[in-house]
């Protein structure tokens, strides 16, 4: 019963957060001084100046209709909500008219998910493992070397690091292609190998840059957990080092790290903006970038709504599963 109440409040918060996010993303572009319909008509007039005012007016109305810009702001908002929540439709892309935004998103999502999920998970697992080792075996030489590498990696700005990787592995030693070249999308070995070959460098850059932070944070957590009374007492119980590490330190260190991981996985739908731009990777990040550069309102709204919803879902899932991981906040 208490759990249901807890679940209920979480669901209400969940819905509220999404509503506020979607509302913001609806209103912000509309407060901008430029109007996409006027922009488009302006472009058209500059190309062919022999349009009659009637034709322009007709054009304006039909464009407003297709873009969902008819009527007052309130009416537009209600129409937008109806479209988004009932049919999941964000309208056509303005830049790639008339491709629906949802189609573009649908095409980009598998790319982003494949790249981001694998690199985030690998980075998390590896970083936590190294961090635990570095914190638990503080005085060992290998722990010091691993930690040193993490400290070296962490402060490098991502774009510098990614560019360095591109320079080394695409120009100096050209083992990887500079940008994505995919001819056919048939599901066969050559397609898979091309995808892998194209994804290794962006994935590597993400893993290594993420690794630094995971190692440093896990190491800090581990050093503080190692000094807890219960770890000291476990030692006095005569338990082996492995057992202390597995049963006493790892679960207590992993708790906060799982939260951060879940939030990062929610953020995966943002795509890695810089990665995808630098490596020419056809994911969601590149889509957001395209939308912003070409002032494509529908595309911006579509991609950002997807990322708002996914981050909120991730937070929601963490809230729900956390009591199962940490007995101290379990509602009984």
């Amino acid at each position, binding site marked *: 019963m208490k759990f249901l109440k807890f679940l209920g409040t979480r669901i209400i918060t969940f819905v509220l957060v999404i509503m506020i996010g979607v509302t913001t993303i609806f209103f912000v572009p509309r407060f901008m001084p430029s109007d996409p319909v006027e922009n488009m008509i302006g472009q058209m007039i500059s190309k062919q100046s022999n349009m009659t005012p009637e034709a322009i007016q007709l054009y304006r109305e039909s464009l407003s209709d297709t873009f969902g810009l008819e009527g007052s702001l309130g009416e537009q908002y209600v129409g937008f909500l109806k479209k988004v929540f009932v049919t999941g439709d964000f309208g056509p892309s303005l830049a790639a008219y008339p491709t629906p935004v949802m189609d573009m998103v649908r095409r980009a999502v598998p790319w982003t998910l494949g790249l981001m999920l694998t690199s985030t998970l690998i980075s998390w697992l590896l970083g936590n493992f190294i961090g635990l080792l570095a914190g638990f075996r503080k005085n060992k030489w290998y722990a010091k070397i691993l930690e040193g590498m993490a400290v070296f990696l962490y402060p490098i700005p991502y774009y510098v690091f990614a560019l360095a990787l591109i320079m080394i592995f695409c120009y100096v030693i050209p083992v990887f292609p500079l940008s994505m070249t995919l001819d056919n999308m048939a599901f066969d070995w050559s397609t898979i190998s091309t995808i892998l070959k194209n994804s290794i460098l962006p994935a590597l850059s993400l893993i290594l840059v993420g690794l630094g932070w995971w190692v440093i944070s896990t190491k800090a957590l581990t050093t503080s957990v190692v000094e807890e009374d219960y770890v000291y*007492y476990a030692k006095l119980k005569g338990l082996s080092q492995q057992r202390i590490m597995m049963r006493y330190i790892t679960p207590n260190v992993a708790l906060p790290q799982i939260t951060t991981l879940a939030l990062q996985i929610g953020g995966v739908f943002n795509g890695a903006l810089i990665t995808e731009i630098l490596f020419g990777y056809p994911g969601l990040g590149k889509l957001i970038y395209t939308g912003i550069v070409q002032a494509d309102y529908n595309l911006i709204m579509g991609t950002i709504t997807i990322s708002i919803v996914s981050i909120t879902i991730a937070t929601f899932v963490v809230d729900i599963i956390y009591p199962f991981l940490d007995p101290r906040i379990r509602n009984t």
Partner: protein
Amino acid sequence: MLKLTNVCAQYETGHDVVRAVDHVNLEIRENEIMGIAGESGCGKSTLMKLMYGLIEYPLSLTDGSIELKVAEGGGRHGTFLNEDIQKQWWKGISYVPQGAMHVMNPVSKIKSQFFDAVCDKSKDKKQLEKEIAEYLNELELPREVLSAYPHQLSGGMRQRVLIALATFLNPEIVFADEPTTALDVVVQRGILNMLSRVHKKTKNSMVMVSHDMGVHYQITDRLCIMYAGQVLEVGPTMKIFENPRHPYTQMLIHALPRIGDNSQKEGIKGAPPSLKNPPAGCRFSPRCPHCADECRKKRPTETWLDDGHMASCHLLTGKRRESFAEMEGK
């Protein structure tokens, strides 16, 4: 059982050296509860660590030896020296820590903390759980605590669980480091009763560290009074309370409130010496009302009085002995 011979130990902190335990001779006998009393920073806990074989940086043993003799089954006895005592952890000697608040893993159930400490792979878990539940029952603890998490138990309950945890494998010596700290007197009494019940049942030895003289009076058989890293007086608890021989013990016991006694109690003036640079002679001399020249210069020797009652004070030897006895008589 456990014998400490001329034990000296020190902490190294950077360039400083703190001699926390200095020339201590002590013996824990079979089937007794030994109390160790003294004020904060007198070396009680350090002595406990040494006896438990927990000798590691920054603590080091500079002189003397600690010898543990335990039965190893089949009538054989094993002797363990200094750090080797660690091999007997939990089987031969166990430890009840102070501050039960933070010594249990917050994310695992009491049950699995028992399994952890027992570490016996020959028994299957169901059987083991049954045995643990029976043992808890004997100690008047509800079976339900096994499936609870540490945060769901009260402080007193946690301390009881820890005592059960430390005594489950029936070790020959149980160390209890201030087991009643931070608990109210009613719970304290419960804990002390439980400890003496366990002691009566198992006939094992127990070492109890506490600064609370009341606790020692209630439960211990013998008592050891420590001051500034040295043992000043050792003897049967009743004798020490009735007839303390060292001036420090006398003042300590005189300061305890008694029922029906309304006189103003006085503390011992001054503060314990720094262990970095202790006084040359008797370490209590700067605060002792009977202090003479020899006290400041020469370390007093251990003087055995009657029936295993020992005190180390110049007043008990040499010329001043008679005058002191006379004064005590008054």
